[in-house]
């Protein structure tokens, strides 16, 4: 599953940026339960923890919630918890409820809040050709450098990374007319290439 993960692609690009900024890091994959013990240890021992994840039904994925429920409040030193939140849609507003939740979460885990880096548009990371994917995730390299420099996502540069809060009316019209047909067509093509034999709008449980 990891090879298909948008989060994984984003995190590795971000980490290269952090490395350039002189920061050392270790990575734990929370989608693999076998790594939970090591991830918990890392959370207890490290000064800074960064959790990257995709938006699931307006908030944190249930798997991540289960992991969070296993974390202790104790740390070996003052700790800061930051987040990288991404999702399929472009508009920043989509992430705001989750961001509210994340703002209140670190203190419940004995940490201070280091901000949330938010960015949308990640559906196409999964479905676009490799050269386009590399271009899409490149901005995360710069954000990795920024994190290395600032130590958190509380800076105006990190806030700006989210992009547009909502498409203005005229842009919505233009996107509907010019862009959505192309994007939805790419999804159809990707599905066919993946072996899908049904229309994407199939209703398998209809009577």
């Amino acid at each position, binding site marked *: 599953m990891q090879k298909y993960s948008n989060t994984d692609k984003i995190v590795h690009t971000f980490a290269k940026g952090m490395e350039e900024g002189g920061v050392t890091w270790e990575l734990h994959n929370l989608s693999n339960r076998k790594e939970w013990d090591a991830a918990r240890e890392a959370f207890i021992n490290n000064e800074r923890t960064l959790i990257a994840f995709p938006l699931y*039904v307006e*908030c*944190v994925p249930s798997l991540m919630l289960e992991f*969070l429920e296993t974390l202790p409040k104790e740390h070996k030193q003052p700790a800061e918890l930051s987040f990288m939140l991404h999702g399929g849609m472009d508009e920043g507003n989509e992430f705001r409820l989750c961001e509210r939740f994340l703002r209140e979460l670190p203190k419940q885990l004995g940490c201070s809040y280091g901000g949330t880096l938010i960015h949308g548009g990640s559906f196409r990371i999964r479905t676009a050709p490799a050269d386009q994917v590399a271009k899409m995730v490149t901005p995360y390299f710069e954000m990795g450098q920024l994190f290395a420099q600032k130590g958190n996502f509380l800076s105006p540069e990190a806030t700006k990374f989210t992009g547009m809060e909502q498409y203005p009316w005229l842009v919505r019209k233009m*996107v509907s007319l010019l862009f959505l047909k192309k994007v939805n067509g790419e999804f159809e093509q990707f599905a066919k290439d993946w072996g899908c034999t049904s229309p994407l709008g199939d209703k*398998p*449980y209809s009577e």
Partner: protein
Amino acid sequence: MNLVLNTLGASIDKETIIALLPDKEVEIIDTADMNIAHCMGCNQCWLKTPGICAIKDDYENILKKLVKADNIWLVSDTRFGFLDYKGKRMMDRIMPMLNMTIGFRDGWMRHELRYHALNIGLLYQGAADQALLEDWCKRTAANIGGHSLGAKL
């Protein structure tokens, strides 16, 4: 049809749940002892077998009932001011009810509906952020074309 997904099991009885709901004609599914895995975001329900989840567990029967439901009530415990993982897991697995394809609805970019709109309500226990849960119901319902039925303690 009103469908209730009770993740609290025997710690709340059927009569208590029904008393908290505006409509008394409901089907309650006790999910506490069911085998239900987390959604892993594999996208197969959108791109490989549209509408069918790749995970073969007890949620498949719930999906078949969701297709016939108008209103869905989630009964859940809370943690960190929000749903606990068992409650959130029920809603994360709802993805096959939507399509991969996107469009604008109510001024926002959203996934297109695979079936029909669903209204969503929440009955929760524990010290949660009421405003956050109410907003979560509104947003989640809007994404599936419906409206919030409210979040009640």
